């Protein structure tokens, strides 16, 4: 069993108006096999948390720690984090010119495993995973995310999740932009990965819809750079009914 531990994390970004603190003391512990959902209003810092875990250079950690089984994640480069078993399905996956999906997937898999996958089984694995996610075979020869629709990009993120088999996956609004069928297909992909690899999941979402397919063990309410409340799956339903007013209107 592995543990991803975030302790009192403070994160700033540089803006034209100077430094701006976005995360104001986030603490969260996820174990493999667990599913944590994070919900919270726009701009509260959910993607910032996700990107900081992945190591995006735009975010500066001013204090606090992130550790993976005791190892200092903040000391690792972006690629080292991925090789250590962290995976971020991005809210806005990036289009990479000139690189075919096939080539990309194989290169990444090789980097993560430390050895090239066996060609025959690999090709089969990719094909099977693509079929399960209802991704057309033709996508393999297209450039990474280039010209993919919003929903297609999200499916391809989950395709990578299934193929790379991380210990921890952070899904940043993977459900946004998915049609009803795609939501189901993608959720099944996440559940498969979780079962097969005993993966821990941090699921960022605005909607309870996806939580019907991916059952959270914990729900965290994220407000203004902090976790304002935690609970079980029932908290999500309550949020959907009541909104975030309760958290936003606390007198200063």
């Amino acid at each position, binding site marked *: 069993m592995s543990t991803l531990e975030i302790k009192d994390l403070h994160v700033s970004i540089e803006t034209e108006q100077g430094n701006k603190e976005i995360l104001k003391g986030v603490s969260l512990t996820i174990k493999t096999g667990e599913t944590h959902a994070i919900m919270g209003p726009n701009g509260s810092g959910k993607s910032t948390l996700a990107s900081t875990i992945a190591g995006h*250079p735009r975010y500066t950690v001013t204090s606090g720690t992130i550790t993976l089984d005791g190892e200092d994640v903040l000391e690792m480069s*972006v*690629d080292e984090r991925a090789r250590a078993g962290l995976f971020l399905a991005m809210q806005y996956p990036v289009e*990479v*010119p000139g690189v*075919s999906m096939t080539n990309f997937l194989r290169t990444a898999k090789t980097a993560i495993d430390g050895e090239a996958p066996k060609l025959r089984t690999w090709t089969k694995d990719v094909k099977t995973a693509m079929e399960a996610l209802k991704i057309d075979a033709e996508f393999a020869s297209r450039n*990474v995310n280039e010209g993919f629709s919003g929903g297609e990009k999200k499916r391809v993120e989950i395709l990578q999740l299934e193929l790379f088999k991380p210990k921890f996956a952070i899904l940043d609004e993977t459900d946004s932009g998915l049609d009803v069928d795609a939501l189901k297909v993608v959720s099944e992909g996440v559940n498969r990965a979780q079962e097969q690899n005993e993966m821990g999941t941090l699921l960022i979402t605005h909607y309870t819809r996806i939580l019907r397919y991916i059952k959270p063990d914990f729900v965290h309410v994220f407000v203004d750079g902090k976790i304002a409340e935690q609970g079980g799956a029932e908290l999500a339903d309550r949020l959907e009914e009541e909104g975030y007013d309760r958290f936003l209107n606390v007198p200063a």
Partner: protein
Amino acid sequence: MTDTATHVSGEKARIGAPSIAGFTEEGENLSPMNAAASPIGGDAVKAHSHGGGAGVPDSSRAGRLTSYKLEDFAPLTGREEDFRFTPLKRMGGLHKNALTGAAPVLVMTGAKAVALETVAMSDARVGSAGVPEDRISANAWNSAAEAKIVTIPAESIGEQVTLTYTGDSTEAAAAHLVVIAEENSESVVVIDHVGTAVLAQNIEFDVREGAKLTVISLQAWEDTAIHAASHLAKVRKDGHFKHIAVTYGGDLVRLTPSAHFAGEGGEVELFGLYFADAGQHLEHRLFVDHATPHCTSNVLYKGALQGKDAHTVWVGDVLIRKEAPGTNSYEANRNLVLTEGARADSVPNLEIETGLIDGAGHASTTGRFDDEHLFYLMSRGIDEKTARRLVVRGFLNEIVQQIRVPEIEERLNETIERELAATGN
């Protein structure tokens, strides 16, 4: 991939008629220079040039001066339409001085039945496929002491020859080569440029009826070389001319491939790959002259740039004349800027004088390999070096795989690796 100001709206702006609004808003037609009084424009100019119209004669390729005589071309100022990107100061005098230095030595290998001759410039075959289209080309024509002629015999199939120019002098020199692909021949001609030189060069390609000629021209010079080359092709009835320019060596390279259709049913493919490092100026200006009916042209140039003051220029002039109904033409230029401080100019310029074409389109994109691309790849476990290599190789591969000569493909891949390693990327 972000598009720069040179982007032409609509990735595949395919059109079937000349009167699409906004079509000529970019490109050279709007250049204010060379006004009506231009000595170059004058009467030779057709009344109608697509988009340019009256008043900007020299901006139409139809009106551009061609001549064997150096005197016909006014001395260059650098403000001319076709030299506005070229740093004349770095041309080593190729545009103004007598070119009396020793030309690089030319050696042919791999020939079976192909002949290489050395003849006087007065030989009837010299000038059979082209007329100089700029001052440097005319200067080279006038200065060349002799011409080399390579003839691929009629009906021969499968010849693959390599012509290697090896230079070891920095004295300004001129060279002339004529490649004749006789009727129904099918061949590959590799023209390799190595060593160093200050060279103005004309290469004529006479693609005879039914001939299929593939040319791979490698500008693989050492860092100091200065090279201005005019490739002039005449593509006769049912001829097929495939030209691949590969440029990565030299301080300044200016290559102007020009393909002129001289019969129906011809096909021209112009491919190019360039990789510019810090300080290099690599310029490709191509021209496809659709002057006969039912011909096809396809142009794709891809360039990667890195390092301070790496500068590439790509200008693609495609002219579809009134005499060329049934034309199908597409041109695209794609650049990938890898670091700050590098600059890619890209100007597709399509002029259409007839409405009876099958299709014509152009595209130009300049993308930047930025931190977001890098982050995405690295977040999947790929280290930075590999990520860069993946992107650049992937980007250029589309051209590399057009070459289909394994030795050269391999050499190119090695070169790309070396270029990427050179700046510690």
